[in-house]
């Protein structure tokens, strides 16, 4: 503990960041943070990446965080800098991504005065963050920074804002080491062994078991994914992942039923519907997953492992709640399963698998690609080829996405074997997430292949970040499935609003090849199926950033689909299948 006041607040801030292991900050300067930028200029330990809009900084920090397991760090100025960051903060909050966002603020004596570029940042970001701080005394500065990192990464991770008045960063401040223990925030991570025993009893007795694993397993670190894989193998249970959980279980494994939920596979959703024991791990029973709640997995006894007590019994009541870190709980389950001599019902499990394989036989993700010269590219096929070609090349691949149909097709047709390689905006569904997120991933993994699977509408939301790619020579590949529509919205209009395509045509699109050129990147285009592979290969061979504009079938819809307000067994299958499902009810029309 050094209590001398020999360094400025800005220097103390950077020292605390360094002690927290920060290597890179995504930011954008302005008046209120000038002293911090001055201190950054005078040091080399921490790298600063200049984005083109503050919203991009937060998504970049999210991509960095999700692909490394570290805390992402953002620095923005007061007022408009802070307000531009808000969407990214809410995105990180919804998807449990650890981010620390430093915001400039007017000097303490001007706070509340409608000063130039003043915004009530702590007020605005209170419901947008896991926690936020306004530093009003120099003595608090170092402690608050350490605390912010602890809060961002502990328990259920999330974004934390530190609002820094200009005088606080200019004036001298004392340093303080990270505290040993936080006074109030100490989330529970160890499972209750009595509950683990109860869980194992339910699992052993199950005739139709099902594992439903989500983003919390990824939050718990790669070891948790390994423990999950072991548990699934040792029990022989089928397993599904949420959109956020993809990669926490190897997609190539025969026990994997694919993603569940609104655009999940037939087998995953029917297995959820029909199971008699549901083991949920780090998944929050989101409405995209459950469909109509009163019809959701009605005949199962449920075990729910989550580090956040508020995720348990929120939407779906469960028999065995376990508040714990997913990794620790999975290890405890493994140990208890192995120690128990209770028998399992092997014949029942075998007949459950026969049923699942029958559902699988439906091939709910099936599509037909016209392979003739000039054939229109099916978006699913574009993703499938992207997956096959990148896998054949063997280089490590990270995928980010924007939001829409392309995101769902990516989730369905790109397959992940490891955690932390799939970055998507699930909870908030933020168009414009994918490009800056890819930027953050590429900063963290300079040698890897980072691809943003995009829609032509979403990509325009943060297209300015192409400038950042150029400045830092980040060879991110933007793979646009260009259907000339806000396809996901158009799909709902087709299915629910009599094909009245109100304002969903992507009119006056830029020429993406020229746009790439203008941003010092390489542009390429595939018009038809015969051009697809060569464009994908050229994109992957290209040493610079690329925008690949892939013209895809404008009319294609994303199936399977559980319409809002419907149950898992009422899912709509695509045109490849005979009519199915119950359609949308009036109550369902009101849902999003």
């Amino acid at each position, binding site marked *: 503990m050094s209590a001398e006041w020999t360094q400025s607040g800005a220097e103390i801030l950077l020292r605390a960041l360094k002690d927290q292991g920060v290597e890179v900050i995504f930011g954008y300067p302005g008046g209120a943070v000038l002293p911090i930028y001055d201190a950054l200029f005078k040091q080399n330990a921490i790298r600063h990446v200049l984005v083109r809009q503050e919203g991009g900084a937060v998504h970049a920090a999210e991509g960095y965080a999700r692909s490394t397991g570290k805390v992402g760090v953002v620095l923005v100025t007061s007022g408009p800098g802070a307000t531009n960051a808000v969407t990214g903060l809410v995105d990180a909050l919804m998807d449990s991504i650890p981010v620390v966002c430093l915001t400039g603020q007017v000097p303490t004596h001007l706070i509340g005065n409608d000063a130039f570029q003043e915004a009530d940042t*702590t*007020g605005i970001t*209170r*419901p947008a963050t*896991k*926690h936020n701080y*306004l530093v009003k005394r120099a003595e608090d500065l170092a402690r608050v920074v350490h605390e912010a990192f602890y*809060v961002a990464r502990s*328990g*259920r991770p999330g974004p934390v804002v530190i609002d820094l008045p200009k005088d606080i960063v200019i004036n001298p401040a004392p340093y303080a080491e990270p505290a040993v223990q936080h*006074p*109030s*925030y100490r*989330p*529970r991570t160890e499972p*209750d062994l009595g509950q683990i025993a109860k869980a194992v009893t339910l699992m052993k007795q199950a005739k139709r078991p099902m594992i439903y694993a989500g983003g919390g397993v990824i939050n718990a670190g790669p070891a948790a994914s390994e423990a999950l894989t072991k548990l699934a193998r040792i029990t022989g249970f089928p397993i599904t992942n949420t959109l956020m959980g993809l990669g926490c279980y190897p997609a190539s494994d025969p026990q994997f039923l694919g993603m569940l939920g609104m655009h999940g596979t037939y087998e995953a959703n029917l297995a959820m519907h029909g199971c008699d024991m549901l083991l949920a791990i780090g998944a929050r029973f989101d409405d995209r997953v459950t469909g109509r709640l009163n019809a959701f997995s009605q005949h199962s006894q449920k075990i729910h492992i989550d580090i*956040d*007590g*508020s995720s*348990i*019994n*929120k939407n779906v*009541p*469960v*028999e065995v*709640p376990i*508040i714990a870190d997913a990794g620790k709980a999975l290890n405890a389950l493994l140990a208890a399963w192995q120690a128990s001599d209770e028998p399992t019902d092997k014949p029942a499990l075998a007949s459950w698998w026969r049923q699942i394989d029958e559902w699988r036989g439906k091939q709910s993700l099936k599509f037909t690609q016209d392979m003739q010269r000039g054939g229109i590219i099916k978006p699913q096929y574009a993703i499938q080829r992207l997956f096959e070609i990148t896998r054949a090349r063997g280089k490590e691949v990270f995928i980010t996405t924007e939001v829409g149909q392309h995101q769902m097709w990516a989730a369905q047709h790109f397959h992940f074997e490891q955690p932390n390689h799939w970055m998507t905006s699930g909870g908030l569904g933020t168009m414009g997430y994918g490009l800056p997120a890819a930027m953050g991933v590429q900063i963290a993994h300079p040698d890897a292949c980072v691809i943003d699977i995009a829609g032509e509408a979403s990509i325009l939301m943060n297209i300015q970040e192409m400038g950042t790619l150029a400045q830092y020579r980040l060879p991110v590949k933007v793979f646009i499935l260009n259907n000339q529509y806000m396809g996901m919205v158009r799909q709902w209009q087709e299915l629910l609003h009599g094909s009245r395509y109100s304002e969903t045509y992507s009119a006056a699109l830029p020429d993406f090849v020229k746009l790439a050129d203008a941003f010092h990147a390489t542009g390429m285009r595939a018009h038809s199926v015969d051009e697809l592979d060569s464009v994908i290969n050229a994109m992957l061979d290209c040493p610079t950033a690329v925008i690949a504009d892939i013209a895809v079938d404008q009319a294609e819809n994303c199936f399977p689909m559980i319409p809002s307000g419907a149950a898992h067994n009422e899912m709509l299958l695509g045109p490849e299948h005979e009519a199915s499902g119950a359609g949308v009810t009036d109550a369902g029309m009101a849902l999003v």
Partner: protein
Amino acid sequence: MVDVMPTTTDTTQRSATISVLVDNEAGILARVVGLFSGRGYNIDSLTVAPVDAGGLYSRMNIVTSGTSMVIEQIKAQIDRLVPVHRVADLTMDGPHVARELALVKVIGTGEQRVEAMRIADTFRARVVDTTLGSFVFELTGNTDKIDAFIELMRDLGLAEVSRSGIAALARGTRVI
């Protein structure tokens, strides 16, 4: 630590008195109130004040209502706020005492005034201010008692009411 949770889908509404021990810092009230408004929970009454010699901690007492699943959710949501040390549902955890204070202004003369005074006596309300045409009564008790008193004053010149919201503690040796 909010731990064992009931798993009922019972839709009957109940009232809950929730006490929360928090860091006494700027913004904590906004955090808790914002949580309630943002998630659509009810606040029937709310009190907050520092409760230790050093002024480091405040206690909030919140009266809310909902199904038992919602009330468990409210507790869990409060519990995960960073500056929150402890949360207890006094209604569920066993017997507790809850009291509030009300100041009640009654304006009137003659027989009305005499009757107001008589009723105040039976309720053990104190007169804390008086003029020839008015009284301010001070009354403490549980919410029902205060409601009853105010109801009776309605015909006797009730002019204004100011209530503190409830303060509550578990009975016996239990502490939050």
